[in-house]
């Protein structure tokens, strides 16, 4: 294979414009750096796919306003071919170029920089345009300090500081002419070139005039008339007279006689999606910047040599850096690194079968963060998820099972949408929502957005701001029962971040997420919902972290003081995006009760600090939450969630159907709930725990009642005999102490059964104060259980007491 053909992608780099001095935007905030604007605008380019366009793979924002553009590359540019093309070839190349250009113009993207060095042609005659989005991503060149395009390809109106899409037609005409009669204005400096182009304005036939100027009139006349007509149609002075690319395609198709042979889609690694290849290549250690440096495209002049010599108060600097020159060259990358890394993978592994028992990878045992950086692991995961997502929505169940293990970062947006059950024509639905008409909430939204996850380069640009606002407005409009609570912006941010160019899907995800996890949270009066949630959170804390719960109770540090933003935004207000995604990965799989345990997980990580702190220290600590190990937090919260019986985290305000079966009911009025330290377990959950021998029942009725009939295997600690002041299990007596200690050791769930709720709560509260974990109260007490499951009852064995 030719050396150049082994390169699949290339990069070019440039600096964005620096804002001079101390300038502020109209909203009083500092101006968005140009590189951020470019990054935001260029995201759309990443989604464009066309056979004659090189796919954009990545836009990287480097240090000091550097932008690196990575895109697909094929063959060589027209400029690099030294031999002349036949007219048949020229027509075919032109047809492919016009195809690409028409597609771009349909997308309302003006190329402006079309030139012979970014039209790539491979050995089989296929044409792709490289980096066609410079003009678009730089906001018509406004965000970069250098002029776009090459002088000889600029149309007269572009030189006069105008120029719309029709300027591309002129450029195409010049390129076509060059293909026929050779390079124009060779070795002429920009100024004179531009002057010559401008003088063409006075010519009747600019193409002929150019040919005459270059002493190629003969050659020009020899061009087949069909092609010459095309050139002349493109090189009209007035843009309105020029042909459009649609018309050019029509003409070209008529005279095109060459058909490209179909290339067989390569198998194996080279048949994988280019985005995947690029991603894996990076994981293997591929370094975009290194190659650019090697090619001299990134020059590192020591910063000390370009220090400014003075900075005036208004921010103006004197001396120092002079802007680096824009280098139009590109650096190509070979995939050898990746090929070697994956060379041992058998060919069948590239095509995983859905119903095949897959082998386990060693990496599964490693932490998620490491798995996300493991080339081979991500290789298998991506291919597998690609296959599953292909079958969505019929593969929902498989996706859920796999997502439980982990979600490949590259496909997270798709996987989340699948987990949230997003289906249907979401674009159409989203289109129908009016996101433009001003509403009274706009002001608040405008205030909040510039404060929402602004460290993220995508979200802090104007593109991010605009889209976030549209999403919020759309959501509010479609959920008239809800109002805008601060925090909704943070909640939306992760969806926008993952679906930056797919607003409709971001919206669909948000719309599916809220009812599932935050049902009724955004009501105008959400106090009851929040109260219930926090009460449940507090009960879960007591269930899993009794010591901590007791301490926080004692210093009166209640969840209202810190946990509202946690749950209202599902932690998206307190953590950075890279942590939220891991948190939500688990959330989406495990379901709506997980957040309660995540809250406990966070408290657990801060446990030692909290136990040492008084009220004021706690307030300070939570005002600016310290670093939390999210991997650990997620793992522990899932563990907690799984060992907790479902009914103890029951909430009334959920989207789930109401429980009807008396065996399942644990609901109590809100004021009762708020007064209880320990949650209630349903009869059904209790029954299943008993069957698995996973619980220890403490019967606190009087001795007499217990003797008469009791739950089998339970111990009796008559409530009347308990000294609530003595927080020691020993004081309960030798036998209960022994049984309870043993139960705690075996991590059993301690179920308090009583005749009346009040004593049950007081006793369970007492157990929590003794530091006993996993305490809950049997809902309905002994009598309810006796009514529904009489089979569990028996007479206590006397022998046990001896």
């Amino acid at each position, binding site marked *: 294979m030719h050396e150049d053909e082994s390169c699949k992608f290339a990069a070019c780099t440039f600096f964005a414009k620096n804002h001079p001095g101390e300038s502020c935007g109209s909203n009083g905030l500092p101006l968005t*750096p140009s590189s951020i604007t470019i990054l935001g605008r260029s995201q759309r380019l990443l989604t464009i796919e066309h056979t004659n366009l090189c796919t954009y793979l990545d836009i990287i*924002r480097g240090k*000091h*306003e550097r932008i690196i553009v990575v895109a697909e590359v094929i063959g060589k540019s027209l400029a690099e071919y030294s031999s002349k093309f036949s007219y048949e070839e020229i027509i075919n190349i032109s047809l492919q170029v016009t195809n690409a250009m028409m597609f771009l113009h349909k997308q309302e993207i003006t190329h402006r920089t079309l030139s012979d060095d970014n039209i790539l042609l491979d050995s089989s005659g296929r044409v792709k345009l490289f980096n066609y989005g410079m003009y678009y991503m730089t906001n018509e060149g406004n965000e970069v*300090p*250098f*002029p776009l395009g090459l*002088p000889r390809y600029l149309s*007269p109106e572009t*030189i*006069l*500081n*105008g*120029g*719309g*899409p*029709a300027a591309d037609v002129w450029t195409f005409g010049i390129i076509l002419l060059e293909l026929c009669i050779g390079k124009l204005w060779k070795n002429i*400096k*920009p*100024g004179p070139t*531009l*002057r010559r182009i*401008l003088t063409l*304005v006075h010519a009747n036939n600019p193409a002929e005039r150019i040919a005459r100027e270059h002493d190629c009139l003969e050659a020009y006349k020899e061009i087949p008339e069909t092609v010459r007509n095309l050139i002349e149609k493109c090189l009209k002075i*007035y*843009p*309105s007279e020029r042909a459009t690319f649609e018309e050019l395609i029509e003409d070209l198709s008529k005279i095109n006689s060459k058909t490209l042979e179909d290339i067989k889609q390569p198998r194996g690694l080279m048949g994988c999606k280019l985005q995947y290849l690029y991603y894996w290549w990076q994981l293997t250690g591929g370094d975009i910047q290194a190659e650019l440096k090697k090619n001299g495209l990134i020059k590192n002049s*020591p*910063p*000390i*040599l370009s*220090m*400014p*010599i*003075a*900075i*005036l*108060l208004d*921010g103006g600097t*004197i*001396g*120092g*850096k002079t*802007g680096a*020159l*824009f*280098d*139009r*060259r590109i650096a190509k990358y070979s995939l050898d690194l990746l090929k070697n890394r994956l060379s041992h993978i058998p060919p069948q592994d590239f095509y995983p079968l859905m119903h095949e028992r897959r082998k386990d990878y060693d990496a599964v045992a490693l932490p998620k963060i490491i798995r996300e950086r493991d080339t081979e692991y991500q290789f298998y995961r991506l291919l597998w998820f690609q296959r599953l997502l292909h079958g969505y929505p019929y593969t929902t169940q498989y996706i859920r099972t796999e997502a439980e293990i982990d979600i490949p970062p590259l496909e997270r947006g798709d996987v989340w949408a699948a987990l949230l059950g997003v289906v249907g024509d979401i674009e159409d639905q989203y*289109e129908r929502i*009016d996101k*433009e008409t001003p509403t009274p909430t706009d002001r608040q939204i405008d205030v909040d957005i510039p404060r929402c996850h602004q*460290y993220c380069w995508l979200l*802090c640009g104007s593109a991010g701001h605009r889209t976030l606002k549209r999403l919020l407005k759309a959501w509010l409009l479609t959920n008239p029962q809800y109002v805008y609570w601060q925090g909704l912006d943070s909640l939306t941010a992760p969806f926008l971040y993952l679906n930056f160019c797919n607003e409709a899907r971001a919206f669909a995800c948000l719309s599916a997420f809220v009812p599932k996890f935050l049902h009724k949270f955004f009501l105008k009066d959400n106090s009851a919902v929040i109260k219930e949630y926090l009460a449940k959170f507090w009960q879960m804390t007591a269930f899993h972290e009794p010591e901590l719960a007791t301490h926080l109770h004692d210093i009166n540090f209640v969840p209202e003081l810190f946990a509202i933003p946690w749950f209202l935004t599902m932690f998206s207000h307190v953590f*950075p*995006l890279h942590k939220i995604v891991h948190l939500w990965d688990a959330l989406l799989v495990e379901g709506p009760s997980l957040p309660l345990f995540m809250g406990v997980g966070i408290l657990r990580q801060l446990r*030692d600090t909290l136990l040492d702190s008084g009220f004021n220290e706690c307030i300070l600590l939570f005002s*600016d939450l*310290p*670093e939390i190990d999210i991997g650990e937090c997620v793992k522990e919260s899932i563990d907690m969630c799984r060992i907790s019986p479902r009914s103890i985290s029951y909430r009334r305000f959920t989207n789930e159907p109401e429980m009807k079966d008396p065996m399942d009911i644990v609901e109590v009025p809100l004021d009762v709930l708020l007064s209880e330290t320990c949650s209630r377990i349903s009869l059904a959950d209790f029954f299943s725990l008993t069957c698995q021998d996973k619980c220890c029942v403490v019967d606190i009725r009087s001795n007499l009642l217990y003797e008469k009939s009791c739950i089998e295997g339970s111990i009796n600690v008559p409530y009347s005999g308990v000294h609530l002041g003595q927080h020691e299990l020993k004081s309960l007596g030798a036998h209960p102490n022994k049984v309870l200690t043993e139960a705690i050791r075996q991590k059993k769930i301690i179920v308090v059964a009583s005749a009346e709720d009040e004593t049950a709560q007081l006793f369970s509260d007492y157990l929590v104060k003794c530091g006993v974990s996993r305490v809950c109260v049997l809902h309905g007490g002994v009598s309810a259980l006796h009514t529904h499951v009489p089979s569990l009852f028996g007479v206590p064995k006397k022998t046990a007491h001896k």
Partner: protein
Amino acid sequence: MTSETLQNTSKTFEFSFPTCTNEELLYKLEVPVQIPYDGSTRELVQRVLKMFHIPVYLEDELNEKLADFVSKETKNFHNERDAKLIDQFKNNELDVECVIKNWEKQFKENVVDFAEQKGTSDEEVFAAAYHKLVHSPALETIMQVESSYAKTVMNMLKNRDEDIQKLTQKQTEEMEEKMRLLNVSTTEEEINALAAQHFEQQSLAAGRWDSQLDALRHTQRATHRAWLMTAINEYQTDERVTPSTSPLSALPPEPLAPLAPRLEESFTIHLGSQLKQTHNIRLVAVDMMDLCSGDRADGGAWSRVQPALALYSSELSGAVLCADARVRSPQLRAATEHHFADLDAQLRRIAEAVEEPAGRRNAQREGGARARRALQPGDVFVTRHSNLAEAHVVFHLVVDDDSLKSGDITSRHPAILGLRNILKAACCNDVTSIAIPLLLRHELTEEMTAAWCMRRAELVLKCVKGFVLEASGGGGAALRTLTAALPAAISPALFAALGALLPTIFRVSGPVRARPQPE
């Protein structure tokens, strides 16, 4: 290029459809549309449908019509504007020369293909060579050579000081003698003459020493640079050869004397509400001049290693010095500057360079009686050094000392704003550790009571917190270490109080706790 932004225009989209009952009667619809339209026309259709209660069966038709309308109008918009431009050009209504000059300039100054071929500057060549050599086994030799050079300079400085002191003493004695004999055997004129003579002697001595020093530094610099360039050539031709053949014989490693203990405390802090960045803050009681001194007198060759290694890296260290409005050198006793122009030359260049912009600025600010062309409080001038102990870059912050004596300055004080510019410039220029005078004063004076110091420190730290956060968004290098320097004479109690202040302003990362492993 497109310096003039596109002027949008508004076009009216007209649409009419027959009513259900009467085919003849048409509903007419007029919608103003911005051209070029930057939203989705399909969305606009939906809004129009809703707003005017248009029957849904017209949706598809409207979609199509509006899209056509917008694309047609957009095309017209561009074409008309361009046609106008071309007509203007044809009629010679445009300043074409200016337009072309502008393009020419743009291409020449910004695009490699059209720029004048410029080789790497001497400065860069030397920088690359030096950077390579100090990261090679030659480091030790280089350090020793530089140290010995420094020692020579220091010795000469010492000699100068001694000599001048001797002279002063001699003169004082002479003068005293004369004074004693005043009105006895000498007259006032004679004393005046003697004073004048003494003055002349003094300046002569100072001048002689200065020129000697200059000459010495000049020779050292030239020799050193020449040697380094030869060394790099040897090194490049044969990597195995260590350029140890220095012009001077290798010196035995000097024993390191322990440094005088100074009050110092370090913190690791986290900044940011969601994404947390880690920074180090070092609270030190040290004279800022010490940080910028030529050499730790006792440090020997090795105290220079760190600055030398980082000099041409992108992890520079900087220091902020308070200065007055005149661009002049602080009293830095420094060894030879082998890399940059010496301090006086740098300052001269700065003074020349700031004159024009500062003057323009001051004129705008109705400067009045103030010095028209001088820097004002809050302005900063920057010098570069290779011979200082803890700074490659010194930011001289021009301050008005009198206003800084006052206890209540606000966050809008010029000195604070200057600090903000400094931190921003530091980020933009890869200065990753920086030392600032926390109280914005170098010396302790009597009005600086403990309460004053606490208040000032709190203000400065809070502002710095904001500035660091702000600067880190700029896409430059992240500030790694911030040294907050306090006057060396500060009392240990006050130092401790200030140390306690830090955790209340910043989130200090907690100590790492060993967590018991679950069994």
